[in-house]
């Protein structure tokens, strides 16, 4: 049987977590490392990279055509999946600060759940309705842009404070690239190793097309990534520019 070919499975559960985010469960369990992703085929529409939030679970924010189509699917419908791909989180040390922003909370949930570390967590969103999966995060600090739940602050601000207060062996994070940009500066200042799940436009997902590779090293988000550490992030295109579907450079 093919390995890197989309296999179709029925959705066994679809749950609305926020007005824009749904969790989808399917009839197949991946043996995976938190931080790894799969390519999700929405039949007839598109195929997109999505992190595993559990062995048989993805958690997806509605942002465009493919994610909209996915959100319209119901229990019993088929999706195609292949993977798991990428490196996943491999974090040295024990005391880890988890930071999840927006739908970036999804992969951090898998890490919190299966990561076997001494986690302290920060999850942030625009407002109360967009926070989800809070029950999975140990030592949780919530924050929202409007203060409707938890602290009224950016996740980066909360993280900075925590890093000052206590000693952490590492910071693991996923979220919008601008959030990660500031968080990385904070980590560098605090001299704590960063492990960030990054995104670039993906076509093949298996390391052959080059579309997701980043300057100046040619590091492939789909293969060596998506989790980047400081050696990858420093002096790279990350936090500066990326390439669009045609391969043109666009500012972050």
């Amino acid at each position, binding site marked *: 049987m093919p390995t890197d*070919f*989309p296999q179709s499975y029925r959705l066994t559960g679809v749950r609305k977590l926020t007005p824009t985010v749904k969790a989808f469960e399917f009839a197949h369990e991946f043996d995976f490392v938190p931080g790894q992703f799969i390519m999700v085929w929405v039949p007839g529409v598109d*195929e997109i990279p999505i992190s595993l939030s559990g062995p048989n679970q993805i958690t997806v924010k509605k942002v465009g055509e493919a994610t909209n189509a996915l959100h319209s699917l119901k229990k019993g419908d088929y999706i195609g999946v292949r993977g798991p791909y990428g490196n996943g989180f491999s974090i040295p040390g024990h005391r880890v600060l988890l930071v999840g922003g927006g739908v970036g909370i999804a992969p951090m949930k898998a890490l919190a759940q299966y990561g076997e570390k001494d986690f302290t967590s920060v999850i942030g969103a625009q407002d109360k309705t967009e926070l989800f999966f809070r029950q999975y995060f140990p030592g949780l600090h919530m924050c929202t842009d409007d203060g409707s739940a938890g602290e009224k602050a950016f996740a980066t601000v909360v993280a900075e404070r925590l890093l000052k207060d206590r000693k952490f062996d590492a910071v693991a994070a996923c979220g919008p690239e601008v959030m990660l940009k500031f968080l990385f500066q904070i980590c560098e200042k605090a001299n704590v190793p960063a492990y960030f799940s990054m995104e670039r436009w993906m076509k093949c997902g298996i390391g*052959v097309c080059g579309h997701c590779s980043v300057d100046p090293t*040619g590091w492939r988000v789909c293969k060596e990534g998506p989790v980047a550490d400081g050696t990858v992030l420093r002096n790279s295109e990350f936090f500066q520019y990326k390439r669009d579907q*045609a391969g043109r450079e666009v500012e972050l």
Partner: protein
Amino acid sequence: MLTMEIAGLKLKNPTILAAGFLGTSASILKRVADSGAGAVTIKSIGPEPREGNPNPTVLCWGEGLMNAVGLPTPGYKNMTREWAELKDISVPVIASFYGGSISEFVEVAEAIVENKPAMLDVNIGCPNTKKHGAVFGKDPETAGKLINKIKEVAGSIPVMPKLTPNTDNMLEVAKACVDNGADAIAGFNTWGPGMVIDVNVRKPVMGFKTGGISGPAVRPLMVKGIYDLYEKIDAPIVAVGGIMYGTDVIEAMMAGATAVEIGSGIHYRGIDVFSKACSEMEAWMKENGVKSLEELVGSAH
């Protein structure tokens, strides 16, 4: 031990990165060069920015890949920084390109030539768009005319059309290219195309419905094509299709190739497939008392 010369290019070894694999930026090309490739090829450059086909665009269905990336390109006008950085690459950099008409091909070629790539790889074999690619590679007359025009703007840069294997006229197309000045012939772009249907969903899986076939499954088809080309045309041949191991390179050379390109092998063996294949070639050469690759070219005839 592995040095080769093809159409004036001096290669430290005969393994070239195939067009469309990892050739999207100067930095990844540099990485491939550092992984041992004898030369690298920039992903086919087109006249205008193009997003390509919707995903899935590249899948592995077993002993082969299937792709319909659909020639995405930033367009030759948006590559200034890329070209500047290519200067740092230690091996020859080949530029692959395409157009939707002969004049578009020439327009792109002219722009590329200014940046002095080591060779022009003319993509007349891509089955994954309706307007570009293989339409220029199935008719000998069209192909000949195209190469003729490109030679006019190429100056001293060697021109290598890359053929499609999917035509009764493959040998005639090759001959027409050589007659019109092609300095080398690359064989081949992908086979088919093929299609896979998901039976649960009852739809073709590829975004473009179909996809060209590459990888180990096509190697015997490639070898036969190279064998025939070697008997029919008088130009150096670059073999492409399913090459992964050192012995595959040697097999292609015995069939008639002077150099080879490796693409899908990156999926099966990693980005260092180039250096792996090269050590395997060296080991085989020692075991079989072969001093230079040149004596192998065409030796199976």
